[in-house]
């Protein structure tokens, strides 16, 4: 499996680019709805979601570089660890004074899904090369006989 490029990292890089583009809008909207605490919470939620994607990509490409079996183990083990870390960080952040926990968790879920749908849109045309935009195919020149 070594000859296959680390597509997970390419997708995660593309997701990070999208997240950086969307973050200011998300923070401003959360700030308008829930105030300064909401804006801080939304920013932290975006960072957690992005970290989750990057960690998932790193784990999966590491596993896939060894063997499909290790990839499967890394994915399933990584799922448990990442969900536990996200739950634990949200649980710990609940006690922090400037955190609006409702804004934090709702932003996490919505940002996760929105970034995935955005990425799905990006890869639907360039399925084997995520993150690249496919150009319209040039017309095939007529063969002269």
């Amino acid at each position, binding site marked *: 499996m070594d000859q296959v490029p680390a597509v*997970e990292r390419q997708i995660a890089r593309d997701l990070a680019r999208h997240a950086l583009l969307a973050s200011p809008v998300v923070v401003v909207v959360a700030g308008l709805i829930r105030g300064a605490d909401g804006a801080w919470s939304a920013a932290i939620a975006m960072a957690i979601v992005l970290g989750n994607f990057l960690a998932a990509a790193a784990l999966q490409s590491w596993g896939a570089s060894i063997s499909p079996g290790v990839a499967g183990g890394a994915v399933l083990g990584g799922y448990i660890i990442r969900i536990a870390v996200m739950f634990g960080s949200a649980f710990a952040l609940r006690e922090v004074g400037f955190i609006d926990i409702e804004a934090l968790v709702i932003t996490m*879920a919505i940002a996760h899904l929105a970034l*995935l749908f955005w990425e799905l849109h990006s890869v639907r045309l360039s*399925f084997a090369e995520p993150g690249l935009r496919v150009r319209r195919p040039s017309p095939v020149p007529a063969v002269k006989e």
Partner: protein
Amino acid sequence: MSLMHAVIVIAEVTGELSNLNKGLAAVGYGLAAIGPGAGIGIVVGNAVQAMARQPESAGMVRTTMFLGIAFAEALALIGFVLVFLTGS
């Protein structure tokens, strides 16, 4: 006196219900995490099978696998959003 007693009983029951609500939220999240776990297992199993059958399509399969796993994970995320919204 009986009215006061009734108010105290209602307050105790409400407190117990609040604790019960938190416990139910935790149990609900545990149940909500089972589905994505099973889904991810199915995705990974089929992806490994596909890569074993057609190694040349591993790039496409791994792309699909990554996105499928992330979508399944979203269900677990929604579960813990509900825990924090209802159980806190």
